[in-house]
């Protein structure tokens, strides 16, 4: 009895270790395939499906504008309201604009846009590729001699690397407008004063560092979403699980990446 339990335990540990190691090897292989496909497209841009890039720019960029604008406006308003409420006690409500602009541009804007993109694009990539796998479309690509990674991942990657920084700029601007609305309505601060303080804080490096982060987030979200799709099981449940994994892993990677980048920026003095 005890011997069986020990045997089961050892088998479980062995199997778990094997799964983790083979999963890690598989992920490294996938990143290698992506790098190879990027090199192929750089050498021969004709091999990139530009029409697909436009499609994903529309899907991940233009169609995300309303939700990004709505969430960033509300977030700007909430942060401004909460900080105004506290700072008023010390007569420092003038600095609400500084606080909001700084936190929004450097952290909250890129992070919030990346989380929205993970929910929209990352899940969509996993579901799309997972369904293609179920329908044998991935097999069809392979037997046609077309590399699935180049065909399916690179257009999405390029579209995300372009659209996410642009969405972040929109989110930043709209978030500041949210803060301005609260400053005017709740604090009675003139718009000119609020904007003057915001512009004071808006040094190009803060803005650029925030936007630059989103390029890194775009790579994480796309690669995780696509890899989850390729690794999906070949049934409906498998696709569902892949989609969930893409969102959970994507958000975790974005938050972890943000923490690491923040530390790096701080070390560089930004």
């Amino acid at each position, binding site marked *: 009895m005890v011997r069986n339990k020990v045997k089961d335990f050892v088998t479980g540990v062995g199997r778990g270790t094997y799964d983790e190691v083979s999963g890690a090897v598989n992920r490294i292989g996938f990143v290698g395939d992506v790098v190879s496909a990027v090199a192929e497209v750089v050498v021969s841009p004709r091999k990139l499906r530009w029409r697909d890039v436009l*499609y994903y720019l529309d899907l991940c960029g233009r169609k995300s504008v309303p939700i990004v604008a709505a969430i960033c406006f509300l977030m700007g308003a909430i942060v401004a309201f909460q900080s105004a409420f506290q700072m008023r006690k010390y007569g420092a409500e003038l600095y609400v604009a500084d606080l909001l602009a700084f936190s929004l541009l450097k952290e909250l804007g890129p992070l919030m846009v990346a989380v929205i993109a993970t929910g929209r694009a990352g899940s969509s990539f996993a579901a799309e590729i997972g369904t293609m796998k179920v329908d044998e479309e991935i097999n069809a690509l392979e037997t*046609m*001699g077309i590399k699935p990674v180049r065909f399916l991942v690179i257009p999405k990657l390029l579209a995300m690397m372009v659209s996410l920084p642009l969405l972040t700029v929109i989110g930043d601007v709209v978030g500041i407008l949210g803060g301005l609305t609260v400053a005017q309505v709740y604090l009675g601060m003139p718009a000119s004063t609020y904007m003057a303080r915001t512009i004071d804080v808006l040094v190009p490096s803060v803005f650029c560092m925030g936007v630059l982060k989103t390029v890194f987030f775009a790579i994480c979200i796309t690669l995780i979403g696509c890899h989850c799709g390729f690794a999906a099981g070949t049934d409906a449940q498998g696709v569902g699980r892949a989609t969930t994994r893409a969102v959970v892993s994507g958000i975790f990677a974005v938050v972890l990446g943000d923490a690491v980048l923040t530390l790096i920026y701080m070390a560089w003095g930004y």
Partner: protein
Amino acid sequence: METPEKVIEVTGLAVGYGGRAILEDMNFEVRRGEIFGILGGSGCGKSTLLKHLIGLYRPLSGDIRIFGEALNGSGGKARRNLMRRFGVTYQGGALFGSMTLLENVMLPLEEFTALSAAERAEKAMAKLGMVGLTDFADYLPAEISGGMTKRAGLARALVLDPELLFFDEPSAGLDPITSAGLDKLILNLRDQSRAAIVMVTHELESIFSIVDRVIVLDRGTRGIIETGDPRVMRSHSGNDFVREFLNRDGMTREHYEYHGEKE
């Protein structure tokens, strides 16, 4: 009469997943102009064997040679060139949902040829014409029937004029008339192009009307239990399972007549 050249040569092949063999010690060959069937009960490994033959999986052991070249030994450009010489049609068509039928058929031409857009469209339209889908060129796969999807998949597989064609359950899910139409199309293709055709099928109608030679796989013995002409095996096989498998009811008069026409 000269024996046609070997297009596929399988020697000592063992296939399976995760190191576990599903089929072992398989030896067979397919020759130019032959329609070759892979038969067997459910779960015996027909589709697994097909996936190995088209290079999606690596065999556990043994050798698959296509046009004399080792399928799994070649890599990069050599493998790409080899894969260009064969076409595959999948059970569900495997068309790309975001592309029209014309774009689906043009895709291999975009990848493998330097033809202009107009030339690509012309060639793709010709292949769609071959399968009777010219009027549906601008339709998306979701807008056409299952039979049409399979025919469009066939047009895509044919667009590079392959010398070897693989079919995975071409008649599955089709009504008898559509299925017979597809059989006739496959037969015409073989007669016109002298391509070798390998098909996995359960459909007795197809087996007796168009297939020249079959291998029958068995899950119990994990291998080939019989090879030969299905029409002969049907009455003369020494294996009970093979006789039973090939003598199921459901054969229609039309199919017997169709087979007669062929001969």
